[in-house]
């Protein structure tokens, strides 16, 4: 399970980073979203991966999972979600204000939109 988990996190992070370094706002936003998924998975795994473990103390529970990373990751998810929503709106605003979806505001390499 650890290998699968680590590979998934790694692939997500790599794709996210690649997209975040692209020149247009849409891939950047998608890249940041993927990165935040990767980070959330990573954060979740920091207490060690356990199956069938109880998170809260209860009678008859033999095994316990570390509850703190679960609380941390919940906070991180909520914050990440809000930030993603904000950056989507912002990217649209940039497209409207600057008239280009390039992160540097370049218009040179932008193919003219087909008006028909």
């Amino acid at each position, binding site marked *: 399970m650890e290998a699968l988990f680590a590979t998934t996190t790694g692939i997500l992070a790599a794709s996210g980073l690649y997209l975040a370094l692209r020149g247009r706002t849409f891939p950047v936003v998608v890249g940041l979203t993927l990165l*935040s998924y990767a980070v959330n998975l990573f954060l979740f795994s920091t207490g060690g991966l356990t199956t069938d473990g109880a998170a809260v103390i209860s009678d008859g529970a033999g095994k316990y999972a570390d509850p703190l*990373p679960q609380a941390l990751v919940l906070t991180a998810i909520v914050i990440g979600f809000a930030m993603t929503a904000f950056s989507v709106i912002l990217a649209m605003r940039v497209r409207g204000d600057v008239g280009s979806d390039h992160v540097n505001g370049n218009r040179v390499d932008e193919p003219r939109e087909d008006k028909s």
Partner: protein
Amino acid sequence: MQHLIILPVLLPLLTGVALLIHRGGALTLRRTANVLSTIALVVIGILLVADSTDDTIRYYALGDWQPPFGIILVLDRLSALMVLLTSLLALGSLLYACAGDDEQGSNFHGLFQLQLMGINGAFLTGDLFNLFVFFEVLLIASYALLMHGGGKARTHAGFHYVALNLLGSMLFLIALGILYGTMGTLNMADMSAVVTTLDTADLGLVKAGALLLLIVFGLKAAMLPLYFWLPRAYAAAPAPIAALFAIMTKVGIYSIIRVYTLIFGEQAGPLANLAQPWIWWLGLATLALGAVGVLSARDMRTQVAYLILVSVGTLLAGIGMHSEVALGSLLYYLIHTTLVSGGMFLLVDAIAQQRGKAGARIVQSRTLTQPATLGLMFFAGTIAMAGLPPLSGAFGKALLLQAATTAQQHWLWPILLGSGLASLIALSRTGSTIFWRASGEKTGITLGPLRVTGTLMLIGCAPLMVAFAGPITAFTQATAAQLLDRDAYVESIIARGDTGGDT
């Protein structure tokens, strides 16, 4: 009063939420509420500083869950000082904003209070994860405030700022994950106790986590390879917001000081002082490049933004020197630079308003309506920022220069003094272009009483800090001593010596 510690977080939260709910209310009412709340924060700040001078470290356990298990807020000299500094700067910027800048967009007052809540929380928290949460609170408020009023330049600079800070937050989370995975705790005092008992196998991981944190804090503080967002964002932001943002880089500086003296400080065994060499060299490089930026700026706002970089470089070099005297001196310099550079942002905006079309660009233009008032303030600001006697900049720099050891002097003295000279040359060139090479009709726009009060309040701190240099340096030196006394901190937070994590 036991609950005083949480008030700097609670009060702006309540005021901010109330202001957001009643965002359609009368403007005067919203302004009054915001100003009153900020004045109350100044009072609370003063009380907290007074509380902290007896050298006990107090903490506030939320929900009465005792550390290291619950979330705590910690009050020591440094956090009290930073809270007071924030509220003073906020009051100055707010008075200026109330002259009209707050009407340019919606929700200025609510966001302003939430921003203060984030900043105060970051200074007070005793838990690394909560530091992340408060960072996010202050960041999301700052995203909106940066773009207050809209416009091409702002949205554009805003997107860079948001994207970079989102990446920074993710690095922060990765670092926290690594540190939690190896140390089993995120309470700063507890981490400080656990770091000495680490497995040798985990050392590499912890080191990686600790240096990742340096990248995150370096991004906030605008340390060398990570500062390119700052001049553009600060130059584009509305003046009162840019002035308030003068404290934002100091949040990064504060976090660096806190984490690398408390957790990875002198007593951390194999990880002792692991970041200081990095901070020292990067700080000097930031200082040098900031000075080049000041000389090259064509716009007064950009110039002040680069002056902030110069001060950040100075502060980082001071941390890199890692001695008690240097720490005390840099705290004095920190107070000075935060207030005066905030004041300079306001002043530059006031000047730009009276110049008609030329705005903040450093070119010949119309005569100012009030050349004497603005000129005098600009002169005082220049002397303070460039670090000439008799104002506070000179004191801060002299203290830092004195604190350097012989080996450090070879690097610090030429770079720090050279950057001072560069700032002086650049600012005198700006001043003479604006005030002396002006011609033509006046625009007739004058500075309102609120704007004068706000600007004077911040720039006026420069002479005041000289007049009260004795008590202030005594306080900052005691703060430095308290910061380096790690054992006392850990003992006052964690009563039992054996409460570790699961390692």
